[in-house]
């Protein structure tokens, strides 16, 4: 039995260690929690983490980032409940599924916690759940703007590579794009999954099966990076019209090389940075901007890539 006791003591020591450090790290200042819907594997959210960390540092507030490890929205609802139970000064959250998240967010608001909706969701939904404001890029509108621009650049037939088919808001980008082009979405939206080599091969297969496609829209680095690789492989890079949402290292390179015509930057940094600053000022001085903040869309083309390049994946 003694060896068992030893094991217990050892395990307790191991388990306890991170608690100690975590406790000392918690200092004074307001506590804000950002809850996202993104699974751990989604690297795009790194910018968000950096954004809140920088803002927290600058205004002297404690910030935390939480997400459901698998991207399960029901789990996310629990995380919001949990965040509310821990009694923070403010919660910044995405509104990835209005039905599911409405209840937990309203409960937090009713409990006296300030909430700002960022990234996904709409200004209307933000108002309905009682949030202070919405910071983000309205998805459909952004897609529509992209569609209009692509139409002007001569796209007649397109493929939309959707790596996040579970999230209906992301799909709105495809729908907006189709409407902007003035053509029916039909089956042009591809459920690509998130595995890079799968995406690449699916894109290759689609393009060889549909030779009349002259435009591609990807919805983020997860789908854009493999698509770039696919186009380089089949020689269509630079030839076919290629627009993408969001930025990342590969996307920036693609824009520079001419493979990608433009990237739509929703400036995630602002979506994370602004809410923290706004909440801190609201808590301290009672000042609040009178309107929602549109962090995007901004089209990033070959011109003026230096800053983007420098901070891609970090703050851009």
């Amino acid at each position, binding site marked *: 039995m003694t060896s*068992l006791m030893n*094991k*217990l003591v050892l*395990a*307790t020591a*191991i*388990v*306890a260690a*991170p*608690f*100690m450090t*975590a*406790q000392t*790290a*918690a200092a004074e200042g307001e506590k804000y929690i950002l809850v996202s819907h993104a699974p*751990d594997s989604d690297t795009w959210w790194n910018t968000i983490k950096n954004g809140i960390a920088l803002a927290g540092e600058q205004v002297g507030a404690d910030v*935390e*980032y*939480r*997400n459901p*490890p*698998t*991207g*399960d*929205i*029901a789990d996310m*609802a*629990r*995380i919001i*409940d*949990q*965040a*509310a*139970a*821990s*009694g923070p000064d403010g919660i910044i959250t995405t509104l990835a*599924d*209005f*039905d*599911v998240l409405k*209840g937990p967010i*309203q*409960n937090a*608001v*009713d*409990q*006296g916690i300030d909430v700002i909706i960022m990234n996904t969701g709409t200004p209307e939904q933000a108002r309905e759940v*009682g949030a202070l404001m919405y910071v983000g890029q309205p998805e459909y509108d952004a897609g529509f703007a992209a569609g209009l621009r692509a139409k002007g650049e001569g796209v007649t037939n397109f493929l939309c590579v959707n790596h996040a*088919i*579970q*999230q*209906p808001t992301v*799909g709105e980008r495809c729908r907006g794009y189709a409407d902007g082009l003035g053509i029916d979405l039909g089956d042009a939206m591809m*459920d690509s999954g998130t595995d890079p080599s799968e995406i690449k091969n699916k894109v290759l297969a689609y393009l060889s099966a549909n030779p009349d496609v002259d435009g591609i829209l990807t919805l983020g680095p997860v789908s854009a990076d493999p698509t770039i690789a696919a186009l380089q492989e089949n020689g269509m890079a630079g030839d076919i019209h290629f627009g993408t949402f969001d930025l990342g290292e590969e996307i920036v390179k693609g824009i520079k090389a001419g493979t990608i015509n433009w990237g739509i930057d929703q400036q995630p940094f602002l979506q994370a940075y602004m809410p923290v600053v706004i909440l801190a000022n609201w808590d301290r001085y009672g000042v609040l901007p009178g309107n929602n903040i549109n962090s995007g869309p901004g089209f990033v083309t070959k011109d003026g890539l230096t800053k983007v390049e420098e901070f891609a994946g970090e703050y851009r």
Partner: protein
Amino acid sequence: MRQALIRPELGGIVGTVAVFTLFALFAFDSGMFNSQGVMNWTIVSAQFMIIAVGACLLMISGEFDLSVGSMIGFAGMMIAVFGVVLAWPMWIAIIITFVICCALGALNGFIVVRTGLPSFIVTLAFLFILRGFTIYIPQTIERKTIIGGIRDAAEGDWLAPVFGGKIGQPLFQWLGDAGIIGVFERGSRAGQPVVDGIPMLIIWALVLIVFGHILLTRTRFGNWIFASGGDAEAARNSGVPVNKVKILMFTFTAFCATVFAVCQVMEFGSAGADRGLLKEFEAIIAVVIGGALLTGGYGSVIGAALGALIFGVVQQGLFFAGVESSLFRVFLGVILLFAVILNTYIRRIITGER
């Protein structure tokens, strides 16, 4: 004394005590143990418990089900399709969903028993098949992957509250009025307690645990479950209908997954194609922490329930303790390893296995 202590649940009991002690030390005033915090980790644990009971009995009977997570997504989507898209009365939608899902569970079991293939492979196939349908069906008929409006469709239905309702509201209102638990400070619910009742999800978890425990330890069928998993050939020689037992356990696992799904869609009001991802592993982990043997023939429902509790408390508690969320997996791994070592040690004492 030693005899009374050495039982399959011992690992689970030790783990539960250790976990609560840790969090009481490091996260006591973080909100984890106020009414809202308690409700939060209780609900999460109850969710794990519901699927762990099914997975536990199935594992003791010697099989696995990797399709639990996909089944949760699929069942939720079926409710949405029948109840919202086809606008059938919600109780019919719920009953038909249960029938379909239990039948799929039985089919899982039938294929395993008939082909003699490892259940790992057969249910892995179902993991993909069901997840695929869960995305395909709503995409085809509604052009989206989340179908909402279930709560509205369930309004006034007699069966829906059995899954999505809450009980004990007067008690909690009284507790709130008496100042024992917190109340909302503003908004439409100002003055109402922050915890306003016990969700049916928790009741289901308790009912399933009690049912599973009695079935396993107090009935003839329970003896057959142990026998089927311990040594199917020996059990057959003694006249135990092993195939029937296994198929029924697959069905029961599917039933538990469906209970999980129905509670979830009734609470949140929408069904999504990504619901239940990786839940099969969470169920299996809870069961293993609870002392069951992966190869079958040994385990305890109470242990599995404690495993689910540990899982839920750790997952939620780390947040309250202010630990970086990415460390959750590290903790989970450590606990899993520790639990398995302890459980193996206990099991060897009990069964004389070497």
